[in-house]
C-alpha cells in the first residue's frame, strides 16, 4: 500500500500543480476525486500483489512445462497464439484502428461510409495481431537458439526505415504508434514471465540476458506490418 502511494504521488503532484498554479482553476468534484484516488491506490496494490502470486507463476509454469515437453511446434504455436490472442482484443488497439480508418477515409483511400471504414479498421487490427503473434514466435525462437537480440532488432529497424521510404505518407504516423499500443498491462507480465521462464529452463541460457526481449519484438513488428498493410489496401 505504501509503495502504491509513492508510485502514484508524482501524478497527483503534477496535476495539482498545473491545476492550481499554472491554470489557476479550482479542483472540481472533490468527492469523485477522492473516491477515484482511493480506488487507484487500492487497485495498484492489489495488482502488484496478484502479479507475484498469479501472473508470474502462470507464465513461468507454462514455459517450464512446454520446454520439458520438448515439442518445438507446440511451443511456437503457443507463442503465436498468445501474441495474436492478446492483441486482437486489445482496447487501445481498437481505438487506434478506428482513428486510423478516419484518417484513411479523409485521405480518400477507403470510402467514407461506416461499413468500409469498419472493414478497414478490422483489417488493421488483424494485421497488428498477426504481427504481434509473429513477434512473440520469433522472440521465443531467439531464446531457444540464444541469438543476440541486437542483430534482430537492427534488422527490424532497417526494415522500418525501408518501409517508411516506400509506404504512403499518411500511414506512417499510425504505423509508428501501433507498435506502442499493442502491449497491455496483462500481456506484459505474462510474456515477460514466459521469456524468463523459458530462458531459465534451457541449459546454457541466462534468464537475465536471454529472457527479456519479447516485448521489444512485439513493439517493432507492428510498425513494419502496418506500413505493409497501408501499401496493399
Amino acid at each position, binding site marked *: 500500500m505504501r509503495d502504491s502511494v509513492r*508510485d502514484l504521488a*508524482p501524478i497527483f503532484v*503534477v*496535476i495539482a500543480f*498545473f491545476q492550481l498554479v*499554472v*491554470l489557476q482553476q479550482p479542483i472540481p468534484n472533490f468527492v*469523485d*476525486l477522492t473516491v*477515484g484516488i482511493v*480506488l*487507484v*491506490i*487500492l*487497485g*495498484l496494490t492489489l*495488482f*502488484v*500483489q*496478484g*502479479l*507475484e*502470486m*498469479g501472473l508470474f*507463476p502462470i507464465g513461468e*509454469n507454462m514455459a517450464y*512445462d*512446454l520446454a520439458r515437453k520438448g515439442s518445438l511446434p507446440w511451443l511456437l504455436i*503457443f507463442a503465436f497464439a*498468445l501474441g495474436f*490472442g*492478446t492483441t486482437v*482484443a*486489445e482496447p487501445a488497439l481498437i481505438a487506434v484502428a478506428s*482513428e486510423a480508418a*478516419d*484518417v484513411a477515409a479523409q485521405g480518400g483511400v477507403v470510402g467514407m461510409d461506416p461499413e468500409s471504414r469498419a472493414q478497414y479498421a478490422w483489417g488493421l487490427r488483424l494485421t497488428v495481431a498477426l504481427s504481434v503473434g509473429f513477434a512473440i514466435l520469433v522472440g521465443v525462437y531467439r531464446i531457444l537458439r540464444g541469438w543476440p537480440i541486437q542483430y534482430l*532488432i537492427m534488422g527490424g*529497424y532497417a526494415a522500418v*526505415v525501408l518501409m517508411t521510404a516506400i509506404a504512403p505518407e499518411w500511414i506512417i*504516423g499510425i504505423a*509508428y*504508434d501501433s507498435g*506502442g*499500443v499493442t*502491449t497491455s*498491462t*496483462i*500481456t*506484459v507480465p*505474462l510474456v*515477460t514471465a514466459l521469456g*524468463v521462464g523459458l530462458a531459465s529452463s534451457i541449459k546454457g541460457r541466462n*534468464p537475465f*540476458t*536471454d*529472457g*527479456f526481449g519479447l*516485448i521489444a519484438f512485439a*513493439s517493432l513488428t507492428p510498425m513494419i506490418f502496418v506500413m505493409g498493410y497501408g501499401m496493399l489496401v
Partner: protein
Amino acid sequence: MIEVLKSLVATLGTTVWDVMPIILIVLGFQVLVIRRSIPNLKRTMVGFLYVLLGLAFFLEGLERALFPLGRLMAQQLTDPAFIFGADAAADAVHQWFDYYWVYIFAAAIGFSTTMAEPALIAVATKARDVSGGVISVAGLRIAVAIGAAVGITLGTFRIITGTPLHYYIIAGYVLVIVQTTFAPRNIIALAYDSGGVTTSTVTVPLVAALGLGLASTVPGRSPILDGFGLIAFTCLFPIMTVLGYAQLTRWRAGPGASSSKE
C-alpha cells in the same frame, strides 16, 4: 455509493472480457497440450483474481479522478487563449518556444504517468529478481520515466514545428544502435523491452489527449494527421535512457569492472 459500485462492476466486466482471450489460450494449452495441473493452483487463482480486481479498481479510479482532469488540462494548456494570451492578434506569428508550458506539462505528465505504469512495475520487479538485485526497481523505473518524459516533450515539439515524424525516429534508431555497441551486453534485451512497456493503461489516454489538443491548436496542423506519433516517441526514448543508465552504473562501479568479462 451505489453509483460507484455500479460503475466498478461494469469496469470489472470489461476487464474480464478484455483478458478473456488470454484466459482461454492459457487454459486451452494447459488442458489440451500440457495436461498437467498447475502447481499451487489455489494460490495462483487467487493471484489472478487480485490482478483482475486490481486492474478494474485502477482503471475505474483513473477514469473517475485523473483522466477527466488530465484531459481537460491538456485541452486548456493547448488552448490558443492560454498560449498566446487572450488579446493576441490572430494572425501573429508564433514561435515554437511560445508553447513552453506545453513542454513542461508534457515532460511532467510523461514522467509521472510512466512511474505509475503497472506493466513497468512488473518488468522492473522481474528484472530485479533475475539480475540478483543488480538492477534496482526504482533505478530502472526512473530511467524509463525520464526517457518517456524526453520522448513526449520532443514529440510535442515535433507537432508544433510540423517536422516529419520519421526523421526523428530514424535518428533515434541510429542513436540506439550506437549506444548498443557500447552498452554492457547483458542489459540490451531489457533495455529494448523497456520501450514497449511504457505505453499501456495510464500513459496512452493522457498523451493522446495532449497530442490531439495540440494538433488542433497549432495553426496549419490537422488533428487526424499530426496527432499521431507521440506514442512512438514514448516507446523509443526509454531504450536510450536505460542503455545510458546501464553504462552509468558500470562506469560508477569503477574502471576495473568495465573490463571484466561477462
